[in-house]
């Protein structure tokens, strides 16, 4: 049940972010939309690794045989994805800054000079 909720929330976040990307015309808001999509995706990934009643995959002395663990692989994937997401977001923002300084505007429709 929890997995369903998590994945649903993640999917909704992806949709909300997508909506932002498609309708917000300010570059910053578009980037916010993208980063919300990212967060939603991460949530879906972690949700898929979760198992009801399982514990974190860290084996210390408190672990007794037969303990259920959550799937460690999605966690590992998400770690990578989060860092990559940050990298992309930062680069997008750098672009936005440069675009703004070139035009004095942050609206996406002001940057369509090369339509041919």
């Amino acid at each position, binding site marked *: 049940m929890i997995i369903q909720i998590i994945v649903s929330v993640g999917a909704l976040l*992806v949709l909300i972010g*997508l909506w932002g990307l*498609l309708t917000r015309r300010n*570059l910053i808001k578009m980037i916010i939309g*993208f980063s919300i*999509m990212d967060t939603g995706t991460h949530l*879906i990934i972690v949700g898929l690794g979760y198992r009801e009643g399982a514990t974190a995959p860290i084996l210390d002395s408190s672990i007794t045989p037969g303990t259920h663990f959550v799937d460690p692989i999605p966690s590992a994937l998400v770690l990578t994805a989060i860092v990559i997401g940050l990298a*992309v977001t930062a680069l997008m923002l750098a672009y936005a800054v440069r675009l703004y300084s070139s035009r004095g505007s942050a609206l996406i429709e002001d940057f*369509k000079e*090369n339509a041919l």
Partner: protein
Amino acid sequence: MNPLIALAVLMGTAFTMPLFEKAGLKPARLIFLAALTLLLVISGGILVNLLNGAPDLEVATAGFKAPFSINFRIGLAEAAVWSAAALVLLIGGSYMIHREEDGMYDRMLYLVLALGVTGLILTRDLFNLFVFLEISSIAVYGLIGRGGERSLQAGFKYMIAGGISSILFLIGTVFLYRLTGTLNIDGMAAAAGSGSLAGTVGASAVFILAISMLIELKPFPANGWALDAYQEAPSGIGALLSSAQASAVFIAFTKISPLFGDRLAAVLGGIGMLTFFFANLMGMRQKDEKRMFGYSSTGQIGLVIFAWFAVRGTGMPETAAWFIVGGLLLTHLFAKAGLFWLSGLADKSKGEGGNGFLHKVLPSALAGIFVMSLLALPPFPSFFAKMELVKLLVTGGSWWILTALFLGSLFEAAYLFTWLVKKTKAECTDGGADTVNGDSLVVGKRAGPDILTDSPAAEVSSLLKSSTSLWVVIPALALGGLSAAWAYMAGVFNVIAMAPFAAALLMLLLAFLPGRVRGFLAVLVSAAAAWWIWPRTEGIDQIFAMLFLGGGSLNLFAGLYRKDRRPGFWAFSLMTVLSLGALVLARTPLEIFMAWEVMSVGAVLIALQGKRAAGPARTGMLFALGGGYLLMTVLMSIGTTTVLSPAVAAILVVIAFLSKSGALGLHVWVPGSYAEADNDATSLLSSVISKAGIWAMMIFSIRILPGIYGLDGPELWLQAFNSGPFSFLSGILGWIGVLTALVATIVAVFQEDIKYTLAWSSISQLGYIILAFSLFDHFGWTAAIYLSINHFLFKAMLFLAITGVIYRVKTRLMYKMGGLIAPMPITFITVLIAIIALAGVPPLSGFGGKWLVYSALIQGGRPVQAALAMFSSGIAFLYLYRLIHSIFLGQRKDDSLGIKEAPFWLILPQIVLIALIMLISAFPTVILKPIIAAVGELMPAVIGFEGSTLMSAIGYWNGSWVMYVTMGVFMIPLVLLLIGTGRKTRKVKQFNIVFAAERPYRPETTHYAHNFFAPYRKALGSLMNPLGRKFWEGSAGGVTAVSSAFRRLYTGNGQTYALHIVLFTMAAALFAGVFA
């Protein structure tokens, strides 16, 4: 060799680049290039190992086997693309190393891009694929923004698209992991095979994974962002984006494609073809060259995607599949990189005050190689690949897809060829040019330095000065190597098939030699080929081989009259002449088609050498390609008699060859190409090359089509044409022939430009030949071959004579000539004899030709066509009269006072031709006997010889006697005239005529030779209505209108592009049935 070392080196170098920069620019550059070189060495080493039969290289990381750790696998395909990408990366690296500003960041990002490309190609882990996708994307994002302010906009749009794609990729990946329990692609494929992905979740996950990769490959219409990026990125980056990066992503895409179900695969393949079609459609309207290359790139990748799914569906062995896909992909990889670099170098040279330099020999040869390989012309790998692809489509009966493929290819040819011509030909200034009806007629001066005026030494030194441009040779060399490999695999890597290319290459390499040296070499090679071919052929093959190679040699010899270097003329003329030889010797469908394609493209390239030939040559190119596609369709259906009905095959073949011969409706490329080609080249085109279509039509109807359909041998096949089910075809063909003859003759009458007159005359003469051919019987074909030879003789004489005239008087307008009989007597005699031969009056050989045609037509039951043909012969007198009258008789012009007879090089072939025509006229049996015998081998003979008299059911003809009688009739009055009137006439100087004491300044108004046949024009002018041209222009206009309409999709707004991507995904999901 462990590929991970390459990875480590790239990464280590990138990480430490700032330290090297601290040490100085030189070491930084050195280490940068060293890392890229190492990449090439390792990838190349692995490729060589695999080529030597080593098993696929499997590399695990972290000391654990897959699926516990990430693994690489390198098969032949991966190794080939990886090495190719590494090569391009190395050249690109040395290309951009000269940019000083922020060089460190550039180099860091560049190395990361190389890393991403490597990983994309090698990894077998789905999530690792994502990481490498992001690595290459981020490097690209960073590098795109280096092209100035507008490149920032492009980069941002690119990022939005990449962002959406990577989110889809992640979601797909993690669901696939949840369903299959592994991230290893092979493990997933195995799990998919056992049904793990059967449900809706599996289908959706596979779908969004596929779509996310597809978006990276820039499908139509979700690719506006990519085009902006191609347009605005620096050309060095565009080169990599289009070649190395796109190829790497494609390889990654092929790796996940085993997961796709059949329906999804079909949808993706369809998207690939749509992309190919529409990208090229829209490419036609581009003015910005990098954006145009961008359209071409997306189109090519679309084609590769389509090919991948097309071969995948057939279950053909992997090597055969990669023969097609790899051929297309590798060609694109090298050619597109080369084009982007060339364009960048030209811009750079412009920026430095040069004028672009692409019209120099080496760069234009390179540009030509890149464009021709993209157009899938022989001998490039794409040619063989496309042939196989067409074979798949033909045997599958996928006619709509085939049409889209051909149309898309034609669109691409239209814009790439236009670009090539625009860039490689020096611009003409219009100073001093004559124009009539907007057509500029005369030789303008070229602006700037020129292949004709630059000394070879200057060119070489200017090339060496910018050492970067020499690097661009490497992709061309790579294409050459690949061509050899593909030709070898296709089984045509033999002397005959490769000789034309070798000859062209040799001639281009020797471009530094003086023109006449290479000219002599060309004549020798061509004559040697004629010598070599003679004993190796028989029947009509031999006759045509001699026409092609002997006539070709003669024409090449005439070309020696020009002293300049003419790199293109010698290369392409020799190539075309040799390809005619290869055509005659070809036996397999592939050989035939290859030689045909080289010949028809070669002819276009010959024509292109003329100074104003750009437009006509482009039209010619499109007709050559279009005809080639029809031919390809038929040839590739060999072995599957069911897909094409014999009638359809026959129609396609006939259309292909008629467009080569310039039959009415398909003639629009001919007048311009002939007229605007170099004058001596026109002779080659008209007298020799135009006959290829006739030979091919004969061979196809007697040998190849019967071979395909096996209608119990050629006889029955011919009968089918003659009186059987296809007789309507021969009737139509006859009408086409006769109308061509008639209309072209009329048009020829009203031309002011001598070359246009002769060009239209050629069309009309080909009409007669087609008419004779259409009879499909012994008599008709004998006439056709006889006419072909005859046409060769007199048209070569006319064009060579006219070449001399134009060379001396420097104009092509007839009313500006006049009175040339005195300074150019030999030329006059040549023209006189040629005209008599052309007119078909006794005693010369033309009479025999006409007699044969009319007799054959009457015997074949076509009196109406015979009558019309006769009528048009009568009209032909009009232009012939004008020809000799305006040029040689009458008053001499001021401009042509001091001129001399034509150069020796032109006169000698004319004398040879005069001798030949006299010989044939006096002893027609010399050629008629072999012709009748040769045709008689193919079909039941209806005519034959008794002694030297030709016998047919309706009459007989003895050429020798005709000659003697006519000579007598002609000689006696002449002698009488000379004896009787010599004393009474008063010789006047040619300039004894003055127009009422006034010299007319504008000859148009007063000169008798201008608008010569005004009264006839009133009567016949309506026939000149250029319906054919209007039709083709209308089609072209329609295509561009559609193209413009679709272009509105690309608004330039990054958000709209994002919307396109999402809507595109949705539409694809509908077609793939994901919603169900």
